[in-house]
């Protein structure tokens, strides 16, 4: 169990303690304030070099990470790598070694293969590796920003602040995740974050889109979407990842909408104060109806804007921080 990400790589939320997660959320609170200033920059990582290495296309995550690094005054090496290292004829190890030779303190890695971030952290143990999403495994900063957003919005509703809330408001919070859990790295990170923070997590998906071994996950699998929607305080939807082959796991996108889509009719089952989340990019009309996205209960834009402070917090703690008992 990792008690703090200070001075460490961030590869997964599976092994982070509640304290470690809360530390990131609390740190992010102060960066929210930085992002509201007219001069949105602090010198925390001045002179540090952060490489952003995306082996897989991504607009928002990449932009969000690079913005975060720049607002911390880090130098950013941005490398767009072909989607497959095999095609390029270079091994993952060689690509990393090349970047490392330029002199870097951290690397933000996005890769279409599960485990790539862990492999890279083994290749360059002196570099902090921030997992920006690896295959179907983990997307830790998304999990953290989702938890952050829930805490932020609920705190506001209760007239308090996220910092004061700590992890308290997650205790017994009813969170439902609907959709393609099997192929989703976001779901794995969300489940880890929510469960560790003390929430009660239910998941609902077509049988083919549940992950293997889900019985061992800290969640309850439910099959009645309508009932689950009425139960939930927070509903997290996931992208139906047809690019990962999940198209073949359901009869059609239309049928998925019929069985699990958050349609206008289904949205009426929600409690009036329930929150609707989606990590994006959305398939409007598939897992979520456009009118639902645009409703006041949806906090999708908050998720996006919280991406920057969360990633600032992660980079700051990981790169500027030192492990306890170690010299900086």
């Amino acid at each position, binding site marked *: 169990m990792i008690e703090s990400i200070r001075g460490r790589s961030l590869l997964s939320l*599976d092994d982070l303690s509640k304290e470690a997660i809360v530390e990131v959320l609390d740190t992010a609170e102060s960066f929210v304030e930085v992002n509201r200033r007219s001069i949105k920059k602090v010198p925390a990582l001045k002179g540090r070099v952060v490489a952003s290495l995306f082996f897989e296309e991504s607009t928002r995550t990449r932009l969000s990470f690079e913005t975060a690094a720049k607002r911390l005054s880090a130098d950013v090496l941005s490398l767009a790598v072909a989607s*497959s*290292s*095999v095609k390029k004829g270079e*091994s*993952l*190890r*060689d690509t990393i070694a090349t970047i490392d030779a330029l002199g870097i303190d951290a690397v933000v890695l996005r*890769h279409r*293969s*599960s*485990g*790539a971030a*862990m*492999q890279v952290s*083994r290749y360059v143990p002196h570099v902090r590796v921030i997992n920006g999403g*690896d*295959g*179907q*495994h*983990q997307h830790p900063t998304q999990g953290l920003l989702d938890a952050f957003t829930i805490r932020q919005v609920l705190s506001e509703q209760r007239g308090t602040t996220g910092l004061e809330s700590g992890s308290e408001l997650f205790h017994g919070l009813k969170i439902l995740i609907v959709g393609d859990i*099997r192929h989703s*790295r976001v779901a*794995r990170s969300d489940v880890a974050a929510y469960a560790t923070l003390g929430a009660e997590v239910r998941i609902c998906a077509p049988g083919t889109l549940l*992950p*293997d*071994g*889900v019985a*061992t996950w800290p969640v309850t699998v439910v099959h009645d979407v309508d009932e689950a929607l009425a139960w939930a305080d927070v509903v997290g939807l996931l992208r139906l990842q047809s690019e990962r082959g999940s198209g073949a796991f359901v009869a059609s996108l239309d049928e998925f909408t019929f069985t699990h889509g958050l349609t206008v009719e289904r949205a009426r089952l929600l409690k009036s104060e329930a929150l609707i989340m989606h990590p994006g990019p959305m398939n409007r009309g598939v897992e979520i109806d456009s009118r639902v996205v645009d409703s006041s209960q949806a906090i999708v834009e908050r998720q996006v804007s919280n991406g920057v402070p969360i990633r600032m917090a992660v980079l700051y703690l990981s790169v500027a921080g030192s492990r306890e008992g170690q010299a900086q």
Partner: protein
Amino acid sequence: MSAIIIRQGLVVGAHASSVADVLIVDGKIVEVGTVDDAPSDAHEVDARDCWVGPGFVDLHAHLREPGREAAETIESGARAGALGGYCALVAMPNTEPALDSVALVAYVLERGLRTPLDIAVAGAITKDRRGESLAPMAEMAALGVRLFTDDGVGVQDPSVMRRALTYAKPLGVRLAQHCEDEQLAAGGTMNEGVLSGRLGLVGRPALAEELMVLRDIELVRLTGSPLHFLHLSTSRSLEMVVRARDEGLPVSFEVAPHHFTLDESACATYDPVFKVHPPLRSRGDVEALVEALRRGVVDAVATDHAPHAPELKDLAFDEAPAGMLGLEHAASLTFEALGPSPDPQTFFQVLSRGPARIAQLRRDDERVRHSAHGGAMVVGTDANVTVFDPAGRWSVDRHALASRSMNTPYDGRALVGRVSATIAKGRLVVDEGRLT
């Protein structure tokens, strides 16, 4: 020509073991007992406290030649084999191009003759191992090929497999199957289960292997043609094949050291060195394999030695090729798996006599010029002998292997039991644990 005298080892015969000297002259065992009149120029091998038995035979070595000589050659594979105590290797046909013709088989056999070991060939069942049309098995059999397989993958189409079995039967050869239904395996990269779900890796279910095992047992029942099951990795596969064998069906099977020493948890590091097909299985499967080994129901331990150039194992887990090295540590791992007081009879059964019978290695075929293997350690038999030191200790160092590749999953592992000498075709190839 040359003489070797192996002194005072525990000579492991077909049915009993006793301490004796073994005198080898001109490629044959000429005396077993107390040898007082060894030729003065005989090379002395001190085998006190060692086991002396028939040289090991590997049914399953990917020697990569032709086509991927950067990973291994027949020559480097033979050196790795000799260090591992092997006197004969069966070269798998998934080379580039695949060993599916007389010319290619002849090429490998000819290369093999330049090594001190016997290199036998497993020919492809189907052309280019595509699983579609039969390769010229009769022509290859006429060259001395006794095993046929599309290993790397199994023959997916049941009608093709049925036809192959029926065609092979009168040829006196044996087919060997890599059992995995690729459609059910669905491009997976590790064992399907709780861990694959957590790691976000696509799973290869145990059922993908078991379904093909089940199918092929029934095809053997239908055709009466013998079949060897390669690298069985699950408890249920083992159960099914053992039961079929007990019923009298002409089936045999092998297990690979990585399947009885490592489980799927190794994949949690995403290190592609642990990627192999069939995949490392559950703890329970590993225990079932170990149990079967100890009970002596396993026909053969085979390495599935699968060298890969380092850069290919530096790819992401799902992009890296499957397979790991085996030749140099298989005997030690088998010895350890056999438990606290391993039976030397079982040890030589699974590493030599069992596989030799399945490979039908014998000397009556002039064309291949192979010697006989898996013998009873009696006077008059071909001198393929391995001296194994049960108390020997060593550590695996991936940089110090004879193989051209380094993809061993046991790097740094301390092992008990070590091959101290290998005498192949009457020649001392390994002495005191080193190539001569």
